[in-house]
């Protein structure tokens, strides 16, 4: 047991937590924006996959890293627009459309990957974002390695949270998004088009999800392979509920889950001899479910979540 506690004292554990948290932060914030506007986006798993593939492919074909991120965001937004066409404009089931988008986007990613790189057996690699050395800070003992030895994209992921908080709670467009998830009729009665607001939110949220996926191929690793996202999208959907639809809590939730994940890898090494490793793989999920049960009891749903708005229909 002593060994287990020592894990928390290693800088490597904290650095890993931050790395693992990044895609979850972007995915959760993206999903949160969609749901705050009243649209559940279960396409997240696929949109993260397509983001991971398209950002990576852009760089592999000779593009540079930052435009690669923009491209991943653009492709993610396209799938967001598709989801919005089905759920916002046609008012179809958000569950069905979301699952469909996930299947379409995942398969399409693998298909395009295979089409463009038919012969490769070992996954080809790119040169990903490199950790930046901050003079002074990076040389600090412990904190230097834990906090200040990350890639610029990692810092970007954390910087997005306060930006989203500001936009959601301090600007007119943020108010419109929140209102769209609470009472679409109230927006309509104030002369704003509900469908436009919802579409914009879904596209923006999907772009963030895609960038979250791209983090995996462009910052955490250097290659794209099948099953890469591995359920991270679904974790994000759960984290939104865990966070009660608040971006600050979403950041905490993502860090908590990432911490558990980083812990289980290290715990395997410490205690793997006596306990089957599957037990540790399961741990983050079991603890997330427990945390969800506690948090979600007080969760306050956006009232119009899952409710399509049809203009001009008999009220």
């Amino acid at each position: 047991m002593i060994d287990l506690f020592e894990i928390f004292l290693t800088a490597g554990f904290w650095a890993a937590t931050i790395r693992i948290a990044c895609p979850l932060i972007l995915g959760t914030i993206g999903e949160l924006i969609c749901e705050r506007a009243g649209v559940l986006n279960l396409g997240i798993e696929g949109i993260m996959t397509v983001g991971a593939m398209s950002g990576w492919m852009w760089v592999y074909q000779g593009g540079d890293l930052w435009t690669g991120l923009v491209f991943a965001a653009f492709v993610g937004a396209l799938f967001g627009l598709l989801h919005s066409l089905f759920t916002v404009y046609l008012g179809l089931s958000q569950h069905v459309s979301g699952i469909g988008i996930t299947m379409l986007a995942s398969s399409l990613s693998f298909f395009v990957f295979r089409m463009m790189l038919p012969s490769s057996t070992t996954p080809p690699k790119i040169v990903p974002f490199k950790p930046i050395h901050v003079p002074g800070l990076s040389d600090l003992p412990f904190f230097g390695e834990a906090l200040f030895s990350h890639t610029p994209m990692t810092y970007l992921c954390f910087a997005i949270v306060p930006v989203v908080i500001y936009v959601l709670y301090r600007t007119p467009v943020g108010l419109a998004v929140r209102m769209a998830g609470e009472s679409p009729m109230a927006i309509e009665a104030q002369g704003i088009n509900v469908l436009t607001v919802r579409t914009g939110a879904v596209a923006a949220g999907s772009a963030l999800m895609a960038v979250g996926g791209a983090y995996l191929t462009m910052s955490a690793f250097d290659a794209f392979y099948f099953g890469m996202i591995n359920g991270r999208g679904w974790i994000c959907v759960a984290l939104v509920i865990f966070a009660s639809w608040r971006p600050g809590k979403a950041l905490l939730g993502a860090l908590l889950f990432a911490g558990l994940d980083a812990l289980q890898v290290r715990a395997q090494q410490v205690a793997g001899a006596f306990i089957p490793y599957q037990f540790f793989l399961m741990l983050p999920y079991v603890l997330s479910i427990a945390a969800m049960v506690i948090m979600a009891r007080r969760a306050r749903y956006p009232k119009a979540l899952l409710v399509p708005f049809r203009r001009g229909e008999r009220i």
Partner: protein
Amino acid sequence: MTALKIRGVTKSFGSLVANDNISLSLQKGEVLALLGENGAGKTTLMNILFGHYVADTGDIEVFGNPLPPGATDAAINAGVGMVHQHFTLADNLSVLENIILGTESLFAWKSNTDQARRKLQTLADDFGMQIEPDKWVGELSIGERQRVEIMKALYRDAKILILDEPTAVLTPQEVDHLFETLRSMVARGLSIIFISHKLHEILNISDRVNVLRRGKMVGEIETKKADRNRLAEMMVGREVKRPKVEHITAGAPVVELDNVVLPGAKGHRPVIDGLSLTIHQHEIIGLAGVAGNGQSALADLLSGLRTPASGTVGVAGDTLASFSPQAFINLGIGRIPEDRQEKGVVGDMTVWENLISENLRQAPLWRYRRLIDFHACRAFAKNLIEQFDVRCKSMEMPAKQLSGGNMQKLILARALQNNPRFILANQPVRGLDEGAIAAVHERLLVAKRNGAGILLVSEDLDELFALADRIAVIYHGKISQPISVNAVTVQDLGLMMAGDLAHGLTVQQGAAR
């Protein structure tokens, strides 16, 4: 000066013509009442004016300029404001947020809340309305929410204010307050369209009345020249005969509630809080109260849907031990639920299936203890349809295709066919036209003559005064003593509905003296 001109507006939903070639005009500083029964097309017309709907034909002019169809922002910019019957407010946002939404460019970097606050305060002072900008809308009372809804329109500098059934959810005192506000607006040159089917309110507030019936504009009259009967006749299209109420001496108690408590949601006060009430044979007790004060919980209790946490419920002298809808049916309790479509019928099942649904386990419908005898069921249903005059093309059609009045007759037929000893009538005529209202009331009075005790829950005080022998008021789950209709006035009930239940005692003592 003409503020608004509507010319030849027609709007259909499928085969239903909701508005048929309607024209009207509104002068500056005028209160125009739009009178009509439920379903006459008043709200549809206003939704077209405000841009929620697009009219099939016809055009609208506001202050001389044509109004583009189907655009709420254009209507707002032209100076039209609407107070919707179902408020368009988000409960989980603050009053200020609800009001400033849409007033700024969506892509501004910051909401200018300080300026908004100042403007709101100025408006509130001008019109004598109290507003707390930082409260959550969900925390406000219904009357306060309506003020926010009105303030939303004023904040957008509305010159024409549409109020859709604004008094339906208010106590009489709140109505007086609203009318004062409306008069101060008119004094400042605003024009108002006031939608209602309550005649006394229209006579009180309006300058001119336009009457709609079944989607058509059927008449216009200056309020000065109108009276109640004239307006009622215009609205309904014929003379309205109200059923006669006869006074019968009440008999033995049929339902006795003693100190009943139903707990509310966690962290909230009980929805029924120590309620005691006795209803006798040959008696109609009216239950008045602002919506949401425990009426539906009481109805659930008397339908067998909820079990009290404490207190006792007695039926015909016996104290009940178990609560279930089936037990209540077997005890001879007829139930007319509040929401016809939602709880009264199963819309997708046929008329006859709905008619037999409470009697399924009784011979002759139920044979060999397991099988339904379809012939017997249809015969049973046919008999009820004739007896209660349910008008349907065939008893095989889905119940949801019945008109509101006929659906209610179906429910009455099912509830009354066994001569129940007690009838729970929860808003039995809401949304019905005058003919159907008279039919429902007639049935209830017949049941009373036959010995039933009836609890009539209604938000329409006129209905209670017309039908009930005694009226009780429910407020925050507590109930007042029932007072004889001859002793109580609308003002008394208003005070009690606003929370002063003890006022009932004063009234009763006054009557005794």
